[in-house]
């Protein structure tokens, strides 16, 4: 992706791109096409990315709109209907208490997708900021990387216990019980999973900043802020994308572990990870109960992965030209 000419093209900078047409649009020539249209065109031509995106949007729509069509309460127990396989009344079957699995999958999807995306976003944000700062500014490298070592070394479970002890009541008071738990879980997953991203980004930045195009940009006096946003960040995008995709899967599973241990949502609150965990012991008797949540998690992660692939290609100006 190293491209010494690129710094002279404003096209790859979102901030600059907004500014350029605004100043030149008054001229007699046609306003230059917004670069995001190029990105979009390239994205559209990536078959995997389009399928992934459509699937992901369908999945989100299903879990958020589905409960309006499939109106069974996910916590309603109909004990006479327990342990049913898929049938007309319960298309995905029922669990050991006779709760409708489809309703639970839909309700669970809302939480799992929301937690997965936000926790991943938070972790990527922290990881990227720390990684770029440590890699680019030599003076920050030592302290930030030792800080990363510290976080890597902390035992997760006691850390969670302490966080729950300190912040649960405060957050529930401020955001209501469910909002509080959501914020707590998302921030816990976020702040305990950014370290790998930070180390990877820093490693790449260390190598990048010695490359010719960076030296060239620096020699013409480009300020640090622009160096980072325009030259460094676009070039570390692909490991960040990989971290992001893997991060969603990790966040969905970690959420279920937290709720299972009692640090998360109430026990009767379904999530995909939770449904999978509860079904594992009964896998031989009721295989469909592990298949539904397992499939949902895998497909979500796969679709995000393809969207990530497509985005990466679309944002790479050299591929875009092809």
């Amino acid at each position, binding site marked *: 992706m190293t491209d010494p000419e690129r710094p002279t093209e404003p096209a790859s900078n979102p901030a600059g791109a907004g500014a350029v047409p605004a100043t030149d649009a008054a001229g007699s020539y046609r306003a230059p096409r917004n670069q995001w249209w190029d990105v979009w065109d390239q994205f559209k031509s990536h078959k995997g990315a389009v399928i992934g995106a459509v699937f992901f949007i369908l999945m989100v729509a299903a879990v958020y709109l589905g409960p309006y069509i499939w109106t069974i309460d996910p916590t309603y127990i109909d004990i006479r209907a327990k342990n049913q396989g898929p049938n007309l009344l319960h298309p995905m079957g029922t669990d050991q*208490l006779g709760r409708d699995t489809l309703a639970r999958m839909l309700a669970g999807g809302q939480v799992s997708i929301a937690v997965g995306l936000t926790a991943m976003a938070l972790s990527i944000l922290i990881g990227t900021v720390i990684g770029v700062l440590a890699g680019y500014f030599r003076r920050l490298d030592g302290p930030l990387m030792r800080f990363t070592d510290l976080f890597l070394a902390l035992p997760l479970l006691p850390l969670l216990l302490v966080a729950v002890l300190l912040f649960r009541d405060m957050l529930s008071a401020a955001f209501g019980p469910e909002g509080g738990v959501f914020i707590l879980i998302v921030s816990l997953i976020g702040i305990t999973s950014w370290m790998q991203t930070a180390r990877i980004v820093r490693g790449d930045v260390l190598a990048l900043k010695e490359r010719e195009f960076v030296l060239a940009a620096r020699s013409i006096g480009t300020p640090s802020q622009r160096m980072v946003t325009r030259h460094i960040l676009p070039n570390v995008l692909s490991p960040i994308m990989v971290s992001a995709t893997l991060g969603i899967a990790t966040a969905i599973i970690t959420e279920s572990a937290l709720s299972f241990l*009692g640090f998360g949502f*109430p*026990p009767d609150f379904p999530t995909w990870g939770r449904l999978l965990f509860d079904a594992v012991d009964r896998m031989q008797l009721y295989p469909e109960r592990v298949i539904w949540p397992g499939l949902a998690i895998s497909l979500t992660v796969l679709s995000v992965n393809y969207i990530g692939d497509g985005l990466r290609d679309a944002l790479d100006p050299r591929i875009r030209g092809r």
Partner: protein
Amino acid sequence: MNLSKALMGTAAALALTPLAAMAERGEDGQLNIIYWQAPSTLNPFLSGGTKEVESASMIIEPLARFDQDGNMVPWLATEIPTLENGGVAEDLKSITWKLKDGVVWSDGTPLTAADAVFTWEYCTHPEGGCAQSSYFDGVSSVEAVDDMTIKVSFNEAKPFPYTAFVGSESPIIQAAQFADCLGAKAPECTDANFNPIGTGPFVVTEFKPNDVITLEANPNFREADKPAFATVVFKGGGDAAAAARAVMETGEFDYAWNLQLDPVLLDEMQSKGLGTVVSAFATSVERLHLNQTDPDPSLGDARSTMDNPHPFLTDPAIGKAMSMAIDRALLVDVGYGAGGTPTCNVVPAPAVYASTANDGCLVQDIEGAKAVLEEAGWTDTDGDGVRDKDGMKLSVLYQTSTNAVRQDTQALVKQWWEEIGIETELRNIDASVFFGGDPGSPDTFQKFYADIEMYTNNFSGVDPEAYMANWRCSEIPGPDTQWQGSNIQRFCTEEYDALVDELSQTAGIDARAELVKQMNDMLMESYSIIPLIWRGNPSAHANSLGGIMMNDWDSEIWNIKDWYRIDG
């Protein structure tokens, strides 16, 4: 369920006794046992955990054990001392045990009364932190009258003197081996703690803490033809489902402990024909405690203390309605199967102590529950489905420890309570926090920062005296006692305390039983405690393993010396 299992067990034992009698030591090869929680030491005095006590019960033994029906059987002693045979003094202040002749430790030296005296010194050492020291409560001295006679004296008359050296939690250790391990030095004796010399059927060959124990038959065991197994592998780790699978689906192990799993799953595994689920019942009861004090967070430090009574749970009508709304038989079906029976008493056994006055609770009565609430003035005035009175809503927070069966029970109970108009919020807490007594944590069961909580408790042995004393006013946990105390629901009446005192001075099983029943009924009528399930201890054994007598009064592998392999 319970009875048929017991009958089957007896029948099997009878049918196969002749076979077993011809056996000789070590002829049946290896026995594989899996406990999904691994023992961390073999010295039960240093860790009170069930897994440690039970694994040690293969090696070290007490004077008397409890059999599968809760009867005392002499083990290292020749007989059970009683008032009649003169073993218990007339003033109830001492008990004298006689050791069996010819019992030797696995190193070949004889067992003497001095070992028992040493065990008492070891466990009551002020710096030792002995987990079983309550077995020596009230003991003023243990003396060796002669080599074979042990006299245990008490500070005051003890109507039930069978505590010290009775049951798997109070075994005798060898004085010679532990002589340098008294008090603060106890943890330095790693070799002794991991490889205690015992009188039992097996001897440790290797102990890997929290992992696996390998044992071999004790060459000096007092019964010449026992044990039938030459070696034992006692593996720990994993989870209950995996342990059940290893016995009943893959056949890798012969015996698996504590399988609290979905009954449907256990039935399915049993149908493969490799293993059988057995369970035994003692005194464990899964119960709800209804907080008699106010857990409102706005009270700050006065939360869940005696300064503020609960706004509505002190009214027995509410507890009564809650109890009536629960279908206990269904809870058993869904979560316990053969491992549970519905109960309406906090003292379900031994039979003489079990009251029958409260058995009405066995039948679910939703309409009746609603009527009780109506009568007590709780109605749904604003039509939101939740009953209220004087602006107070019937809304409760219901917490318990993390455990799949408990979470299913919670979900079911929540639905029934919401049906009768009680709004319920659920919470589960990790067991190591919930049962930990950390005064800094808001989530311990003693602090009880919720309206209702659910867990299991029991009493060890067959005498409920200490257990009934749990509900004295003075046992209420609070900030001044670092939240220690066993009166979790904060029940307090003078009448009850008087009965506790009376029980501690009453001798004779019938009189004691009357008192215990009276106290049980008093607790039940207060509806501060709602018993749900009398819990058994489901375990599984391979169909090729014989001689098992499931026992929840003592270690469940109490009679491992009699186990054998069924041929063919």
